[in-house]
C-alpha cells in the first residue's frame, strides 16, 4: 500500500510572483510523487509575517503533527529553538532559499554567496577586469542580501582595477531599483558596470536604457520572462545567475527521500553553518538566452526560468 507523508510548507512573504511560483512548483512536485506510489499531503502557510510570525506558522505545523516542514525562512538564526522543538518531535526540517544556523535543520537550495560570485565574475570578466561599478542591493540586514554582498565584494576585490563607486539599497523593489539607478547614473556619469540583484535588475536596466546608455553599460540581469524578452529584443549586455523558484520543490524531493528512511551520504553537508546541500546555480548569458527564452513559451510574463532537483537527482545525495 501507498506510503503517506504530510509536509508543511512555510512562506513568510507574499509580495512577489517568485514566491507564488515557488509554492506552485513544490505542490506540483508533491503530486508527481503519486506516480511513485507515495501520497504526499501538502499543507501551506503563506502570508506576510515577520520572523516571529513565521515561528508561529511552524508551531502550527508541529501542533498538527506533520512529518516534515520546509520553510523559506525570514531569519537565518531566529528559528533555532523552534527547529529544536520540531526535531524533538521527530519532524524533519528543511530550509530553502536562505540558510539557517540551526543544527536541527538542513538547507537545500542555492549558495547565495556563490550565486553572487557567479554573476560578479561574469561582470568583472565582461568589463575586462577594469572599470567603474555600482551595485544595487536588497534589504540591508537581510541574510540573503548580506551573503550576496559578501560574494560580489570578494570577487571585485580580486580585480584591482575594478572600482566600486557606490552601493545602494533598493529593497528588492523594481521601481526603487529603477530610481536608484537613475540617481546613480546622474551622480556618476562614468559607470561601466552594474551589479544588481533579482527583479531590481529590470528596473535598473530600464533606467539605463532611458539614459541612452545601454550600449556603454554591462549589468547583471534577472530571470523573469518579461525581462528575458527585453534583454533579447534590446540586445542588452547582461548575465544572470538563476535562483530557481524550484528550490522548494527540490527541497521537497529531498525531504521525501529522507522520510522514506534513506540516509545522507557522508560529507555531503557544507555551507556557512555546515548543514547545507547546495544545488546547482544555472546561468543565463548572452549565449544561452535564446534557449532560456524558449523554455518560457506559453508562460505568463512574471514566470521565472526555473530548475528543480528531480527525485532521481536528489537520490544522489543519499547513500
Amino acid at each position, binding site marked *: 500500500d501507498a506510503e503517506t507523508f504530510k509536509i508543511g510548507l512555510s512562506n513568510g512573504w*507574499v509580495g512577489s510572483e517568485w514566491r507564488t511560483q515557488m509554492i506552485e512548483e513544490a505542490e506540483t512536485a508533491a503530486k508527481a510523487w503519486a506516480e511513485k506510489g507515495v501520497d504526499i499531503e501538502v499543507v501551506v502557510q503563506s502570508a506576510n509575517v515577520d520572523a516571529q510570525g513565521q515561528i508561529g506558522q511552524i508551531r502550527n505545523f508541529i501542533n498538527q503533527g506533520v512529518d516534515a516542514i520546509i520553510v523559506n525562512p525570514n531569519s537565518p538564526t531566529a528559528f533555532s529553538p523552534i527547529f529544536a522543538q520540531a526535531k524533538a518531535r521527530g519532524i524533519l526540517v528543511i530550509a530553502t532559499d536562505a540558510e539557517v544556523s540551526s543544527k536541527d535543520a538542513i538547507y537545500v537550495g542555492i549558495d547565495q554567496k556563490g550565486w553572487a560570485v557567479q554573476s560578479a565574475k561574469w561582470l568583472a570578466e565582461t568589463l575586462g577586469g577594469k572599470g567603474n561599478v555600482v551595485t544595487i542591493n536588497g534589504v540591508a*540586514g537581510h541574510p540573503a542580501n548580506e551573503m550576496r554582498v559578501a560574494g560580489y565584494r570578494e570577487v571585485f576585490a580580486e580585480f584591482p582595477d575594478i572600482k566600486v563607486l*557606490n552601493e545602494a539599497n533598493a529593497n528588492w523593489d523594481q521601481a526603487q531599483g529603477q530610481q536608484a539607478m*537613475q*540617481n546613480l547614473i*546622474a551622480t556618476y556619469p562614468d559607470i561601466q558596470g552594474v551589479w544588481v540583484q533579482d527583479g531590481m535588475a*529590470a528596473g535598473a536596466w*530600464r533606467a539605463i536604457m532611458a539614459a541612452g546608455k545601454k550600449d556603454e553599460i554591462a549589468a547583471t540581469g534577472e530571470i523573469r520572462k518579461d525581462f528575458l524578452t527585453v534583454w533579447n529584443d534590446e540586445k542588452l549586455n547582461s548575465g544572470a545567475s538563476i535562483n530557481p523558484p524550484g528550490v522548494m520543490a527540490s527541497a521537497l524531493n529531498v525531504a521525501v527521500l529522507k522520510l522514506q528512511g534513506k540516509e545522507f551520504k557522508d560529507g555531503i553537508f557544507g555551507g556557512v553553518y555546515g548543514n547545507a546541500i547546495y544545488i546547482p546555480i544555472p546561468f543565463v548569458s548572452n549565449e544561452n538566452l535564446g534557449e532560456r527564452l524558449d523554455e518560457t513559451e506559453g508562460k505568463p510574463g512574471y514566470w521565472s526560468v526555473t530548475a528543480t532537483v528531480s527525485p532521481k537527482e536528489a537520490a544522489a545525495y543519499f547513500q
Partner: protein
Amino acid sequence: MANATANSTSSQSIAARLLDGLREPLALAIMAIVVMLAVGELLSPGFARGDQIMRLLTVAALLGIAAAGQNLVILAGGEGIDLSIGAMISFGAVIAGNVMNGNDAAIAQAIFAATSVTFLIGLVNGIGVTVVRIPPLVMTLGMMTVIQGGLVVFSQGIPSGNAAPSLMQFINQPALFGLPGILFAWAALTVVMIFVLRRTAFGFAIYAIGANPRAARLVGLPVGVIRTLVFALSGALGGLTGVLVIGYTGNSFISVGDQYMLPTIIAVVIGGTSLAGGTGGYIGTVAGAIALVLLQSLLITLHLESWGRQLIFGGTLLLLLTLYGRQRALRA
C-alpha cells in the same frame, strides 16, 4: 487695483510678513528643496543637472498623484488616513497591465478599468468608515491586507501584462519643452486640486467636515457622503497612479505600490496639511512630494552604509516636523 494698498505697507511689515511667510509649510518645503539640491550638487556634481531634476520630478509626480488622494482623505478629518493606497496602486497596475497588455489602443480602457475598480474599493473603505464607523486607520489597514490577498488570488494563472509603448513614452520620454507628459499631467492635476479645494463647494465641504463634522452637518452638508466620496477618490487616484507606475516600470508585479504607502502620508504632512484634518492644501503636498523624493535620491548618492542613510532620513523628517509640524500650544 490692489496696488494702492500694497504700496502703503511699510517696510517693517514687509519684513515681518517675510518672516511669517518663512514659517509657512510651503516656503519651508521649497527651502528644503533648494538646500538639498545645493548639497547634492556639492557632494556629487551633476546631481542638480536639468535632466536629472526632470527624472526626479517624474518620480515625484508618481508620489504626488497618489498623495493627492491621501491629501483629500486627511483634509476631511475624522482621523482620516488611507493606508490602503499602496495596495490600490499595486492593484491598479496589475489591472492596467492585464487590460492593455502592451497594446496602445487599450490605454484608455486600462485607465478606466483601473480607476473604476479602485474607486469602488475606495468606496467600500468610505462606507466602512462612515456607515460602520470603523476608524480609517484600521479600516484601510485591513483593506490593504484584503487587496494584497486579492492580488495573490487574482494574479494566479492570469498573465500580468505589460505597459503599452505610448504609456511608457508618456512617462519616461520628453514630450514638450524636454519634459515628459506625466509632468504636464501632474501640473494639470495640481490645478484641478487647487481649484476644487479653494473654489468649489465640494472642497469647501471637505474643509468644513475636517474642521468640525457636527457643525458641517448642522449647516446641511452631507457629511457621510462626502467622506465616503473622499475615500473613493483616494482609491481612484491610487489606481491612476498604478497605471502610471506600470508605465514607469514597464510591467506590473503585485507589490509594485507598497513603497508608496507611508511616503504619501509624509508628503502630505511635511506639506503642511494637519493630520487632524481641516487645514492644509495640495500645493504644500506637491512641494512635500518633491522634497521627499529629492531626499531619498540624495541619500542614494551619498556613499554611506545603509544605517547611515536611514539615520539621516529619519533625522531630516524629524527636523522638518520640528520646523512646522508642531501642534498648538495649550498655554498661549
